[in-house]
């Protein structure tokens, strides 16, 4: 599937994150800024890639600004942003 537009989801609150996605040409680029990046950066990226894969998206630019959100929150926000970007 191809992303149709830019979209974002989430908040700047503690224990939450903001995700922004935008269409890209050929591959997946994920940039993560996180207050717990050294500890969980890899997990956050893995979760994001999993959800992109679930939605069969092979090209997108994603930016994540994380404030120590739990895994279920990361996944919810990423999925929301993707769904929004798939809507016309």
């Amino acid at each position, binding site marked *: 599937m191809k992303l149709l537009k830019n979209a974002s989801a989430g908040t700047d609150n503690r224990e939450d994150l903001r995700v922004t996605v935008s269409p890209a040409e050929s591959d997946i680029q994920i940039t993560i800024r996180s207050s717990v990046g050294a500890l969980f950066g890899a997990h956050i990226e893995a979760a994001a890639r999993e959800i992109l894969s679930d939605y069969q998206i092979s090209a997108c630019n994603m930016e994540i600004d994380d404030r120590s959100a739990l895994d279920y929150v990361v*996944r919810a926000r990423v999925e929301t942003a993707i769904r929004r970007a798939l809507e016309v």
Partner: protein
Amino acid sequence: MRNILFVPGNSTKMLTNANFLGSDAVVIDLEDAVAPNEKDAARLLVRNAIRALHYQVKLGVRINALDTCYWQQDLKEILPLAPDFIMLPKTADVDSIHVLEQEVAKLEKQYGMEKEVKFIALLETAKGVENAYAIARASKRVEALFLGAEDLTANLCAVRTKESSEILYSRCRLVSAARAAGIDVYDTPFTDVEDICGLEKDARLARQLGFTGKASINPCHIEGINRAFSPSEEEIAYSREVLEIIEKAEREGHGAVSLRGKMIDAPIMARAKYILKLAGI
């Protein structure tokens, strides 16, 4: 349930901690707590939260009202997680329950769900209050009525006060309807977060009127509500005595029994059993 705590469906912190807020039940709110442009985000957050957090408390979800474009999508995302109950806001009549039930039954079949989800009807309009008894009996799934005084007083063109006589009739009507239908009934939340004394007074009044329990919008109200709705030491002791004396009478083959000069008849025995059940004995 002595208390039901409302948790906003878009608050990551409160969703994560819902197990530890001290309430018997939690209602995750997808309706008033969530802005229209965040309904989609809240749905997914709540879905993920329920999956990840293994809530130990009794769990309900307040979906959006039937006159919105959100409620069906709410059900589609949330129902497969088998919450204990769905709370339907602005329930005005029997038709509302039937429409909800039809949609829920369809989804339950689609997802192959075994357990039937229950409903709590939130009555917050004059029409809802008047139709309370019919709503209570509209479906086996309806397990309780719940009074929403803020929207109700607006609908009544009344003035909402702490003293609350403007909702007295509605409170009594709901209690009467629910008890007649054999289901539970929950009182409206107390909205002044800081006024714990006022909250306790309001909760005691609700208990006095016959409510099963009371909703709250802030965890700091739970203790006061519990105090009002938990039986006192004296009530528990008395109830124990009542049951003991009845058991003794049955063993010895006596008929009528009395305790401290008062005849112990069926209603008193039923109340004693209810008290001990509330006390978890």
